[in-house]
């Protein structure tokens, strides 16, 4: 009875969408500051997904991470939008949007915006969420940044590998290197940087499945480089950003090392060499103090090279992506608005003709924000996306009602259609005749045509703000999805080889809904102590079998508690407690018995505790951080056939020489 009353109570009050951890966060956008990134001790861009309250995580190796932002997607399609300094970054690879391919590291990040509700930002309608990374502005004069980091997971054999109690090696994480040089001035700045990552697939559970792969296919070497120019010109600001990344390069090592892509229809990893290029120009011209024209044009190419040349056919994934927009923005004291027009042209480069090797999407969008009597603030936004024959309509309104000085009621409601072209995924191109699946002998079927999917998103939150020291919010979320294209597998393991077999079915008319409460709390206990809580619960799921199956892969309960101690600006301690309830993976229903319980189709509930410490030296020019992750040594796992992440020590040293000349 108590449980029913609790659910009814939570149902009535609804819940918040955001983590109010940062003073800058709003209910529709969670902001991770540079201070939070540093005090958390994390090393890689992808580690940020563990810091975001509203981010669900799926990973096999802990390095290549798939995320779902605030359950804005019924599953694990990586169709959220990634932005860097106002430019859309399209990592157009099947299944994986590995943000570690960006050629800079967290040491270059100023702050990260996570858009947890649909809205218009940087010329895009973010119906599946958006992560916008803002890099640090170069200091005046010449600056040099260098960073190196590495980690060690417990459980290696140590000297016992030379005894009869030998056990396999667990993991080698890193080393990671990055360096940048910049020249800054009031109106012009230039930054160039490089990064190199080494990542070894050595977890015993993963290696067991890849016993036949050569060592160089399990030892990734990633090299990236970028250049960024920022200039104040023509009464505005303009950014030119060029980036390149590829794997396989033995720059610092004598041996080649490819990347690995977990390819769902194959049920296992395929060695690949992603080659990613991006060049973009973005910025704005101020027409008057209150009006501006904003723009962005970019080109990117996402190529997957296939290092296993002895396998025929070769992977021939190669996408060129052109995207741009121009918008007019006007701001007044009690209102602001914008209208814009954008084009996205995508070309799939193959050695043979598809039923259309490219598509072009046109979009018209607008946003209007209005304050009424300093009590009500509403933002209306909408977009039309047109592919030449079909149109997707997207619209929503986010509202804030100030009930008193301390109490606000916040809501976000939106409805959107989504064209199959917007997902730009393996199934869209397979429908067009992309033949890799057939050539590789992989069984699949697509039920009917891929649909125009629909979603209705609603969130509400009651927010109490007692000044800078204390705030909390509670509310709820509701998602209604229809005509969804959901991929479904039934993996069967071969006990002799630990290889999987599956037939892939893409259901094109899947429907379902989810509902649940959320709670956030934030308090500055004293000048040195700060703590915060994030909690969300998914008690109700309804829908077709495929929809239900994929929603079960999210833990029903997620609870994060963080407490930090910072007696002086140059030293901090941070502790993060994360509780994740059990999750179920019906696609792997048979692996428990078939693998003699080596693998399991459910991920156990776990309480994880991470401890981090950082110290600055030499007037903030040298930073050293230590992160001890999973100190309780719980079975931390994010995929049924992925690795188990035991207690791990992360070390990082960063040299920040700003304005040395």
């Amino acid at each position: 009875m108590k449980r029913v009353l609790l659910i009814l109570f939570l149902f009535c009050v609804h819940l918040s969408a955001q983590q109010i951890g940062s003073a800058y966060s709003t209910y529709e956008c969670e902001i991770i500051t540079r201070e939070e990134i540093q005090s958390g001790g994390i090393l890689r861009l992808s580690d940020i997904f563990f810091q975001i309250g509203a981010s669900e995580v799926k990973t096999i190796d802990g390095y290549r991470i798939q995320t779902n932002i605030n359950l804005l997607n019924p599953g694990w399609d990586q169709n959220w939008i990634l932005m860097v300094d106002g430019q859309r970054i399209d990592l157009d690879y099947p299944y994986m949007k590995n943000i570690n391919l960006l050629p800079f590291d967290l040491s270059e990040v100023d702050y990260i915006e996570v858009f947890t509700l649909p809205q218009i930002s940087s010329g895009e309608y973010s119906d599946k969420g958006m992560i916008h990374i803002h890099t640090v502005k170069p200091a005046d004069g010449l600056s040099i940044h260098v960073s190196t980091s590495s980690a060690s997971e417990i459980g290696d054999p140590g000297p016992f590998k030379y005894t009869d109690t030998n056990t396999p090696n667990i993991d080698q994480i890193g080393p990671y290197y990055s360096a940048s040089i910049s020249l800054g001035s009031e109106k012009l700045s230039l930054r160039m940087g490089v990064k190199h990552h080494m990542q070894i697939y050595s977890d015993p559970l993963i290696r067991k499945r890849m016993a036949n792969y050569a060592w160089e296919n399990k030892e990734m070497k990633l090299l990236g480089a970028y250049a960024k120019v920022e200039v104040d010109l023509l009464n505005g600001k303009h950014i030119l950003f060029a980036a390149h990344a590829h794997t396989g390069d033995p720059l610092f090592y004598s041996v080649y090392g490819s990347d690995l892509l977990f390819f769902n229809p194959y049920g296992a990893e395929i060695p690949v060499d992603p080659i990613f290029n991006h060049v973009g120009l973005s910025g704005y011209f101020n027409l008057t103090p209150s009006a501006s024209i904003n723009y962005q044009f970019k080109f990117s190419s996402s190529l997957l090279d296939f290092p296993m040349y002895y396998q025929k056919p070769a992977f021939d994934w190669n996408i060129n992506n052109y995207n741009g927009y121009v918008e007019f923005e006007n701001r007044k004291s009690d209102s602001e608005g914008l209208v814009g027009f954008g084009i996205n042209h995508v070309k799939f480069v193959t050695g043979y003709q598809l039923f259309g090797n490219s598509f072009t999407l046109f979009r018209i969008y607008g946003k209007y924000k209005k304050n009424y009597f300093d009590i009500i603030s509403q933002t209306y936004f909408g977009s039309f996306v047109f592919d030449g024959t079909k149109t997707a309509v997207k619209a929503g309104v986010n509202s804030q009602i100030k009930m008193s000085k301390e109490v606000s009621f916040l809501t976000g409601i939106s409805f959107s259609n989504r064209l199959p072209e917007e997902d730009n995924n393996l199934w869209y191109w397979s429908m067009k005749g992309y033949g890799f699946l057939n050539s590789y002998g992989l069984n699949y079927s697509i039920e009917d045509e891929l649909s125009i999917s629909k979603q209705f998103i609603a969130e509400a939150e009651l927010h109490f703000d007692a000044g800078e020291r204390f705030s909390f919010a509670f509310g709820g979320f509701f998602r209604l999805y229809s005509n969804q294209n959901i991929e479904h597998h039934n993996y069967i393991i071969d006990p002799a080889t630990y290889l999987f077999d599956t037939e892939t079915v893409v259901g094109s008319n899947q429907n379902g809904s989810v509902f649940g409460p959320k709670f956030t709390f934030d308090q500055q206990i004293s000048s040195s102590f700060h703590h915060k809580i994030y909690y969300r619960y998914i008690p109700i799921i309804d829908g077709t079998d495929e929809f239900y199956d994929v929603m079960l892969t999210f833990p029903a309960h997620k609870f994060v508690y963080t407490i930090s101690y910072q007696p002086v600006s140059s030293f901090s301690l941070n502790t993060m407690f994360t509780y994740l309830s059990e999750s179920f993976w019906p696609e792997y229903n048979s692996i428990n018995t078939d693998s003699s319980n080596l693998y399991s189709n459910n991920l156990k509930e776990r309480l994880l505790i991470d401890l981090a410490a950082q110290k600055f030296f030499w007037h903030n020019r040298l930073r050293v951080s230590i992160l001890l992750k999973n100190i309780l040594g719980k079975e931390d796992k994010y995929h049924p056939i992925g690795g188990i992440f035991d207690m791990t020590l992360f070390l990082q040293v960063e040299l920040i020489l700003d304005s040395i000349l």
Partner: protein
Amino acid sequence: MGHLLLLKIKYCLFIGLLLSSANFLSAQDENSEFNRITVGFSAVKDYLYSDLQYYWEPQVGFEGYFNTPFYFGNIQAGVTYCRYIGYTSQQPNFLSMIYYIQWEKEIYLSSPISIAFGGRIGLMDMTFDETESITEKTLLNESDLMVGIISKLNLNLPEGWTITIHGSYMTVFTSKKMEMVYAGIGLTKTFLTPDWLKEFFE
């Protein structure tokens, strides 16, 4: 196993006795962060090396470190060097370097004696001698997480010199955990931290 338990109990009793006789009038309060720095050097020996003892014999090793006041205690960074000699040719000799950082609380007993206790975390880095049986060079190095507790007994001499007897109980998180008790004796010298170094720390 019984031997291990007995040693753990003895170690805890040792710390308990020291604490019970302590005068908690700590001189630490008079110190602010980084205002003095202590350089130390010790000879050390691993007296308990769990399952390692069936395969390797530890030699006398050395430890060097820096120590300075840091938030309610002292922080110490150091490295311990020790060689382990294999009993048979199947177990190659190896060099162990333990890189650690440690926080400790120092308590002054009746002058000139003080004690300290605290915890440490670090990495035990092992470099194995190349032998004919090792074909892969990547197998020659191994690095694993180490955590431990420490205690010290200090006899303070004039002009900043101190004789220190110290012990550490450490666990290395290999698949079969290695538990080690290092005991050591050494000499330290304490200086006022030069301004340039204090600025670096701050």
